[in-house]
């Protein structure tokens, strides 16, 4: 494994993910201290991507749990296969097993449907577990996660406590639509993913689209940074920049004048208010 944060940077770079020293250090610590990592930041700055890249760096699988309002233990951790249990009871009606034995049987591993969190801790080798957009889940679920994140175990009333056979590398992401509980934060390393600097964003574009002209890419990045300064409803993230670059290549635009810009605007702006606002200040945005 890695012995210094700086070893991570070229390896991640090979995989197409541009990291600075700070994120590399945090990822390194996450691997070394075996602690979950909480990534917060605006939408589209590459939080989820970090988990995917980490999985391919470690050559392991990624298990993803997408959070939403109302997410409960049954869809996140486990559920009993109710229909199968019923069938088993029917089949065993004629058998000589005692009631207790029958009960043990239907509450055994075979009848357990493993959902992402349980899958992640019961696999043979460590997996990367991505708990995406945790801020969307309810507080009850957040509280439930505490046991998993600190002790790496899950309690199932009918079976007892299941301890992790391998500790997963956990990445949580949040768009900060609400404040997460202190208890959860304390169990994680924390990193705020900022919008990238111009240099870094330029690198990212080249990484994804090597064929793009440097001058054009530079202009694009400049425009994106000026747009971000405008305080829009939905500021374009890195994902939008890449989409935009792809769009520009597809449209065969070679120069970003007013016409070319307006033509490709739909790649970066996703609300009518924002489009109006940017169009109103188009000269400033184009520099």
């Amino acid at each position: 494994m890695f012995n210094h944060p700086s070893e991570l940077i070229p390896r991640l770079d090979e995989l197409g993910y541009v990291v600075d020293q700070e994120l590399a250090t945090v990822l390194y610590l996450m691997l070394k201290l075996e602690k979950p990592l909480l990534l917060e930041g605006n939408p589209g700055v590459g939080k989820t991507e970090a988990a995917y890249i980490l999985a391919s760096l470690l050559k392991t699988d990624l298990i993803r749990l997408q959070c939403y309002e109302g997410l409960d233990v049954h869809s996140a951790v486990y559920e009993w296969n109710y229909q199968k249990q019923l069938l088993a009871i029917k089949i065993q009606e004629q058998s000589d097993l005692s009631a207790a034995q029958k009960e043990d049987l239907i509450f055994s591993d075979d009848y357990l449907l493993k959902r992402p969190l349980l899958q992640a801790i019961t696999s043979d080798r460590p997996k990367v577990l991505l708990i995406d957009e945790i801020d969307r889940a309810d507080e009850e679920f957040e509280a439930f996660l505490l046991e998993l994140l600190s002790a790496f175990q899950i309690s199932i009333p009918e079976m007892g406590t299941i301890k992790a056979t391998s500790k997963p590398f956990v990445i949580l992401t949040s768009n900060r639509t609400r404040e997460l509980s202190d208890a959860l934060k304390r169990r994680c390393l924390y990193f705020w993913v900022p919008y990238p600097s111009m240099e870094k964003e330029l690198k990212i574009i080249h990484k994804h689209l090597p064929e793009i002209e440097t001058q054009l890419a530079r202009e694009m990045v400049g425009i994106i940074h000026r747009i971000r300064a405008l305080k829009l409803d939905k500021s374009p993230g890195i994902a939008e920049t890449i989409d935009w670059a792809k769009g520009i290549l597809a449209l065969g635009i070679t120069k970003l004048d007013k016409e070319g810009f307006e033509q490709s605007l739909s790649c970066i702006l996703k609300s009518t208010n924002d489009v109006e606002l940017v169009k109103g200040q188009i000269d400033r945005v184009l520099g």
Partner: protein
Amino acid sequence: MHYTDHSSFTAAFLGFAQLCRARKLNVGIHENQEAMLAAVQGLWGDFELFRYGLKSIFCTSSDEGVAFDKLYDKYWSEKMGSIKGKTTFKNQSNLIKDSKGSLVMVGIGNEEDDNEETDARNTAGANTKETLRKTDFAKVEQIDSQLLEDLAEQLWRQMSLRLKRKYKKGQKGNIHIQSTIRRNISNGGTMLNLIRKDKKQQKYKLIILLDVSGSMDKYSFYLLKFIHTLRANFDHVEAFVFSTRLIQITEFLNRKNLRESLALLSYHAHNWSSGTKIGECLKTFNDQFAKRLLNGKTLTIVLSDGLDTGEPEDLKRELDKIKLRTKKLVWLNPLKGMTGYQPIQRGMKTALPVLHHFGAAHNIESLLALENILSDA
């Protein structure tokens, strides 16, 4: 970093951890242990790497990250500076001599000079927050206003989130025996599919009437911000502003950004900072909106200082009408926060017997108290 042996590094590090704790960062024994682990994982030798590592362990938000960076630079540059003999320590009792004879700073957080005071303000520890919660909106100094706005937004958002959760539709309820049997007849009576009862959804609605007359000028911005936060987190909020006329402002508050909302408001609402005719405005409300908006699940909140130039009888009559239609009628008055305030103005005096609750609205805390009133409803 210059430390070649463990003990002096540990002591210096603990000094830093203590400083962070003094500045309200979340640093406990657990965090210290992890930071030490991080240090031995090879981060120790590099000033920046160690910063990044510590930051990820000590901080839980980007704001804290900014505060941390300042502390880190200040502390460690002073520590290195002390080697060159530049540092002067005001509080000698904070210096401990360790076994190797090198000086170790333990409680640098206690020494305060002018610069540091402004720093402390920026880092906004719990004490500052506590004071700000109780600061009267009318007495906010320029320097505090941004902090106050941030804190208000944070606290009110949490409050409306809690309320929203309380009113939100719960999870599905118990098993509904009859429908389960009916549904499973096709399976020969084997209960393969369970049908659950729906919990009944309580749809509460907030109606807020904000006084924006001249006498309320100092408060109306903050109260509007309060309404804006509620609106952002609560599905059913209808808001009105009134002075001599009543204007519905709900749609202007739909903007995520308060400044945009304000810009729209100032464009559409011309009744800002004029006189007050509460009774007349409430009559407009009753005539035009009450039938549609008010029912047994509505909570009506009037935010006004009660300094009325209209007829008190009008006010009482209209309030009575509202009370009949709404579940709860609450009046929050910024003046109530003043010591010695008595509701003796004509308007307020006649209104008082009609209300379910009469509270203050002059600082963050008094508005937070609304949570209890609303959750009782």
